[in-house]
């Protein structure tokens, strides 16, 4: 590798890389993100390599492991260039046929392309698939175009051109102004205006300053930062270097959670590659600007995603938050001005610099600009990462992109904003996604988790689940969060177990007020949200649990009973054989009966009873029908 000494040399290198590449050369790109790897992408890549070798096509066909394109539901995802044919759920067994038919004979394999479940229409190209078609993929789009381990791939798609633009013709102040003008707001949770944060640090007279990437993504079900860091680590690095230049910092940190091993590998590799080209280090591209980056691995604490706790951990101490009455962009890491932004925020920076603030402000709403990546999970047909312009309605995200709720179930609520976000009910689905809009609805933007829940979800249990998670993750420094959540967790658990009592809701409200008003950090202040938002929209469910010992969603194990409908049971013995505790009595052609004393409410009988009978019933809060007398159990129908 050569060291680049000027922006011209960077351009020359880019042209040289491009001249070596033929856009018409066939390329098989396979998603090598964590999701697809878990569904076997590693084996698929290996199979392609050996198959291509077998056909002696190694020289004429490229194979690439790329970043995550987001359609995790249908992984491993394979895209074949130059035709851009997209194959889904590819297994190693499909590989020989793909090579012989698609690569050699240029035929499309119908069985591997996307088929719309409702219309039956096929989509050959990625951009024709409704999941992608309805998105605006400004940030995550490059994941699929590059080998996440190759800096040359990043340069080939224009990488580091924003850095070159900044270093060759903009002052730090101009860069800050441009970001400020773009209206970009932090993608990590609070939505603080990024440019304003930079400006505060920039204007501080202190000489030593820091810029930090917060890649401690800990929300259950959220993986957008992981996808960006794994798939396109150089874009984050480029954003960080630009940020360092803008505020006058010569040192940057990437705080990445150790639970993301591939992200750790890829960002470390990216740093080494950038150093070799001289895009990090002394006198970057001859500009006189020095900048280094250190990668720091988190040790598995959710609270370290909170900015002050993250900085305390970077300092080598236990990751606990500290009071923030003086903002960390003025007194942050080692008490120096420190700009900490989320992965996705940094990834937006090179785009803003390249395309301009005016372009960026055209996307989104009045107060929330640009696009936002959400990880759409839960009871949704198309699980995956979706990038949409701010202002898109929740309904569009769930039905147009997400493909609705599977199994003909009814939508109940969508939880946004991570564990301390809130649940939004059906009547608010027209809500346009934006920072203020989500907060007004009792939830928040958070870092972009979006969990869809159907009618089988118990909202009290949802609150219990998240409060339990947060109790576990509380750092314990301040009392309202540590002890308050512990008590809330106990009360909510009691309610879901049928041990709720009058006054519990009021007590939970008092504990919530205490945590919201008196906690030290944002984690504690927002922790009661799962309870508060479910109470706001689903109070009747709390009351049913407490007063009638009834779970309306038929979910809470302690509050439901199973029985076999005598009219529908055909005496097929399936449930009887599958019952793990031998609680079902009966014989062939004789009505089966559940022994309620032995039953553990595991639900196996309910799941295995053939749909054409539907004889196993689940009830809550109502009396069980008395079993058919022994002599009447013989089925004659």
């Amino acid at each position, binding site marked *: 590798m050569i060291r680049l000494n000027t922006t011209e040399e960077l351009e020359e290198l880019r042209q040289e890389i491009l001249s070596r590449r033929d856009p018409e050369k066939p390329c098989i790109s396979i998603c090598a993100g964590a999701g697809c790897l878990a569904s076997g992408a590693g084996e698929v890549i290996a199979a392609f390599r050996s198959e291509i070798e077998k056909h002696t096509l190694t020289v004429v066909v490229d194979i690439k492991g790329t970043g995550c394109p987001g359609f995790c539901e249908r992984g491993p995802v394979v895209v074949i260039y130059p035709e851009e044919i997209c194959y889904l759920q590819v297994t190693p067994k499909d590989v020989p046929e793909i090579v012989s038919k698609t690569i050699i004979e240029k035929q499309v394999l119908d069985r591997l392309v996307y088929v719309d479940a409702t219309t039956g229409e096929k989509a050959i190209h990625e951009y024709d698939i409704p999941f992608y078609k309805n998105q605006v993929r400004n940030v995550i789009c490059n994941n699929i175009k590059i080998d996440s381990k190759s800096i040359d791939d990043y340069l080939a798609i224009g990488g580091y051109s924003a850095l070159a633009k900044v270093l060759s013709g903009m002052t730090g102040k101009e860069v800050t102004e441009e970001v400020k003008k773009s209206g970009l707001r932090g993608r990590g949770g609070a939505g603080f205006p990024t440019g304003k944060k930079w400006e505060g640090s920039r204007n501080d007279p202190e000489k030593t300053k820091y810029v930090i990437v917060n890649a401690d993504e800990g929300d259950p079900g959220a993986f957008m930062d992981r996808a960006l860091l794994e798939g396109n680590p150089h874009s984050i690095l480029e954003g960080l270097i630009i940020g360092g230049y803008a505020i006058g910092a010569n040192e940057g940190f990437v705080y990445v959670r150790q639970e993301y091993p591939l992200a750790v590998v890829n960002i470390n590799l990216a740093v080494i590659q950038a150093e070799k080209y001289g895009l990090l280090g002394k006198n970057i591209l001859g500009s006189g600007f020095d900048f280094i980056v250190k990668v720091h691995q988190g040790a598995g*604490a959710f609270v370290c995603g909170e900015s002050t706790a993250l900085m305390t951990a970077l300092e080598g101490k*236990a990751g606990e938050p*500290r*009071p923030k*009455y*003086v903002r960390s962009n003025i007194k942050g890491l080692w008490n120096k001005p420190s700009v900490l932004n989320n992965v996705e925020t940094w990834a937006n920076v090179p785009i803003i610099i390249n395309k301009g603030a005016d372009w960026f402000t055209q996307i989104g709403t009045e107060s929330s600009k640009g696009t936002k990546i959400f990880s759409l999970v839960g009871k949704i047909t198309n699980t995956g990462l979706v990038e949409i312009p701010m202002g898109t309605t929740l309904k569009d995200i769930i039905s147009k992109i997400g493909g609705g709720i599977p199994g003909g179930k009814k939508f109940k609520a969508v939880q946004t904003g991570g564990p301390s976000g809130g649940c939004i009910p059906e009547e608010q689905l027209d809500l346009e996604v934006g920072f203020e809009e989500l907060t007004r609805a009792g939830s928040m933007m958070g870092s972009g988790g979006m969990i869809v829940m159907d009618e089988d979800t118990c909202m009290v249990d949802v609150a219990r689940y998240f409060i339990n998670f947060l*109790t*576990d*993750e*509380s*750092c*314990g*420094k*301040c*009392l*309202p969060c*540590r*002890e*308050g959540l*512990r*008590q809330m967790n*106990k009360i909510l658990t009691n309610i879901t177990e049928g041990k709720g009592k009058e006054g519990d809701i009021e*007590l939970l409200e*008092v*504990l919530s*007020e*205490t945590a919201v*008003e*008196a*906690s*030290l950090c944002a984690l504690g202040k927002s922790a009661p949200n799962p309870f508060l938002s479910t109470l706001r929209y689903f109070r009747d469910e709390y009351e049913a649990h407490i007063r009638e010992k009834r779970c309306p969603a038929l979910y809470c194990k302690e509050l439901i009973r199973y029985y076999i409908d005598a009219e529908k049971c055909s005496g097929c013995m399936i449930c009887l054989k599958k019952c793990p505790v031998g609680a079902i009595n009966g014989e062939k052609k004789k009505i089966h009966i559940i022994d309620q004393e032995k039953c553990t409410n595991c639900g196996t009988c309910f799941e295995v009873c053939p749909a054409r009978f539907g004889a196993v019933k689940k009830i809550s809060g109502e009396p069980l029908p008395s079993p058919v007398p022994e002599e009447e159990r013989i089925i004659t129908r």
Partner: protein
Amino acid sequence: MTEILLQIDGKEVRAREGMTLLEIAQSEGISIPKLCHHEKLIPFGGCRLCIVEVESGSSKKLVVSCVYPGEENLVVRTRSEKIDRIRKTLLELLLAHAPNSPELQDLMQEYGADKNRFEKEASFCIHCGLCVRYCAEVKKLNAVGFVDRGINKEICFIPEIACAECHKCMECFPLCPTSWLQAVFVLTEGLAFSTNSSVTQSKE
């Protein structure tokens, strides 16, 4: 040093810039309850009992006085219905751990807290961190520390340091609001120091 003028509970107060609200209030003889504060230690902001209301211009918010710096023209209220309600709940959460602590009982009377509101927890430490921070910041010994995280966090003596240092110091004992610290030490001593001759000899 610049002097600032602010108001606490309706009283005009002069203070040095950089002083926390708690320090300013204390210097004026205004009492604010606190459990994790100690004048020799860096403010911690853990127990949150010293919560007060501040008003500046049109904005009003609750802050913790032991870490919040005084500002010119700030209007501070140390008691209100809401503040008292929050302090009462905080005390009740602590009383689930240490129902017999004299310090907590005094505050319990003042704020009308119910020591049986929450189910009792069999751990007497209320995580104020006074012992840990005093040993680290004042004595510079780190003989006692925190282990684990969140609700599982406990204080723990480091045997190697404690057996050499603690018997001649014990300055942390009177700091503990629940006396639990002393029990932990005695337990550690019984389990870990019994073979150490220096401790045994010093006792004899």
